[in-house]
């Protein structure tokens, strides 16, 4: 391939199609979840600790900022899981046609946001 092939990498001008947005959010949410691993383990420890330490843990996660962080991790998990299921299905050649891929990308974005709001609303 010629080294002088035309390139158009003006990222601010490229309008990303929906499946591309789902894909990059899958990566971003994965990175966030990676950073959150020890904190998720800390939360598991909190739920498993003795009654008095459990109350202290409850007080810790009752802080609005902590709740917001938990909401972000919840969205990251839901998006990563939904998009991951979509990619697994595509790996076995399910829904690879463009209209279906677009529809499933829409579904992944929507379902993860709605589930975040519903779960967040129920547990806030």
């Amino acid at each position, binding site marked *: 391939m010629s080294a002088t092939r035309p390139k158009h990498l003006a990222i601010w001008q490229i309008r990303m199609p929906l499946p591309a947005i789902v894909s990059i959010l899958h990566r971003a949410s994965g*990175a966030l979840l*990676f950073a959150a*691993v020890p904190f998720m*383990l*800390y939360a*598991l420890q909190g*739920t498993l600790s003795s009654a008095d330490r459990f109350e202290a843990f409850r007080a810790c996660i009752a802080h609005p900022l902590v709740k917001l962080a938990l909401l972000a991790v919840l969205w990251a998990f839901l998006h990563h899981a939904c998009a991951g299921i979509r990619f697994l299905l595509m790996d076995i050649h399910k829904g690879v046609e463009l209209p279906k891929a677009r529809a499933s990308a829409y579904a992944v974005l929507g379902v993860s946001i709605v589930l975040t709001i519903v779960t967040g609303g129920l547990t806030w």
Partner: protein
Amino acid sequence: MVIKRPVIGAHYGLKDWLVQRLTAVVMLAYVVGVIVFLLASRGGSYEAWQHLFACSWVRVLTQVTVLALLWHAWVGVRDIWMDYIQHTGLKLAAHTLTILWLVASLVYSVKVVWGA
């Protein structure tokens, strides 16, 4: 002929790709199990949750899932470094810090899952 390879490549195989998908399936199965428990116990009371994690098999499955998570995270995060960091030294540093983060998480997870 000597093939010049970067010291921190993906080992040029299908293995990591497959591991990422298999560990994803393990985690999905675990999450489905937890959701079924939460729905069956109507939100999961403190007592029911403690009771569940008193079972050794639950702890074993949890520890196995954490291992799957850490291995999965390693493949994914290494892909990110490989895509965005071009400098070999920086990439090696990023890989090393990632491994330290994951190994520390593994040690901590043993304490959380098997601790009193």
